């Protein structure tokens, strides 16, 4: 296999893996909880899993650890393991009577292990969201680079509506449409996915399916 072909395929694998890591199912953008709170979240797809744990020493800051495994089955691309230390910063929050808006910055660094080598990788991103009790919107831009592979970018937008309103203690439901654009992706640069989100108390879960029929199941618990 030529070096260019390996780099391209491995770069895509790195990108896909990191994208799965950086997708958070929270109704807010990043994994920042209340002061002293912990968040545990998972993202699961047929060929990849991602686990995240983060702690918020302040309501505007959190630190965490991400782990991901990407099967990436195929003759030229081997499974990947990804371990990352990550920090999230709340740049600005607007609290209004009927809405809340947030801007976050995040970044991290870690090791990416393939069957051929272990390499250092790093990422950075910015994310913003605004929501009311009926409407949820978010946008995200992300950059990923490493010692070995080509850098990649990803842009994402989400729009959601609540089909019903209920009390604080009951089950809440959201219908969300996610659009993701990855210009350096090897395949499927533009993804459009409907997602159903549910949460009650401190437990949240999402069920989604891409246009190609790839399912996803995401969870989050904060305590």
């Amino acid at each position, binding site marked *: 296999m030529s070096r260019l072909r390996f780099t391209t395929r491995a770069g895509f694998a790195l990108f896909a893996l990191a994208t799965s890591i950086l997708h958070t199912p929270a109704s807010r953008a990043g994994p920042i909880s209340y002061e002293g709170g912990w968040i545990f979240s998972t993202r699961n797809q047929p060929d990849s899993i991602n686990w995240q744990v983060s702690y918020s020493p302040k309501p505007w800051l959190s630190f965490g650890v991400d782990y991901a495994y990407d099967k990436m089955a195929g003759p030229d691309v081997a499974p990947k393991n990804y371990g990352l230390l990550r920090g999230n910063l709340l740049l600005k929050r607007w*609290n209004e009577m009927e809405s*809340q808006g947030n801007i976050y910055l995040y970044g991290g660094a870690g090791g990416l292990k393939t069957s051929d080598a272990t390499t250092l990788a790093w990422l950075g991103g910015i994310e913003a969201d605004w929501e009311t009790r009926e409407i949820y919107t978010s946008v995200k831009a992300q950059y990923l680079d490493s010692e070995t592979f080509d850098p990649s970018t990803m842009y994402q937008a989400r729009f959601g509506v609540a089909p019903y309103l209920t009390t*604080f203690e009951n089950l809440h439901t959201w219908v969300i449409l996610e659009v993701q654009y990855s210009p350096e992706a090897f395949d499927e640069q533009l993804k459009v996915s409907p997602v159903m989100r549910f949460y009650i*108390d401190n437990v949240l879960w999402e069920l989604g399916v891409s246009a190609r029929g790839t399912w996803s199941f995401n969870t989050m618990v904060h305590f």
Partner: protein
Amino acid sequence: MKRIFLTLTTTMMFLTSATPTFAGEKVEVKVKGMVCSFCAQGIKKKFSTQDAVSKVEVNLDDKWVKLELGDNKVLSDEQIRTSIKDAGYEVVSIERRSGPSAAQGN
């Protein structure tokens, strides 16, 4: 027998002193930014760790958090504002209503 009865009665009057005791104060806090129950769980968490608070109730429609304090417990406005801020929100107003007083003895 009469002396024992008198002693007991006097002791009971002393123990239930003239100082009035109050059932838990109720505090209603108007909050900004509270649009998501999953995110607002932090408010319940923060107040649940306060010894003075015996009950927390959150209403997303009317944007308030209702606190019920334990008997003779105190929670200052400053403490309330700090807890709400640590949960990621902002206080608009705080209203207090004392519980029914029960003065025993004079």
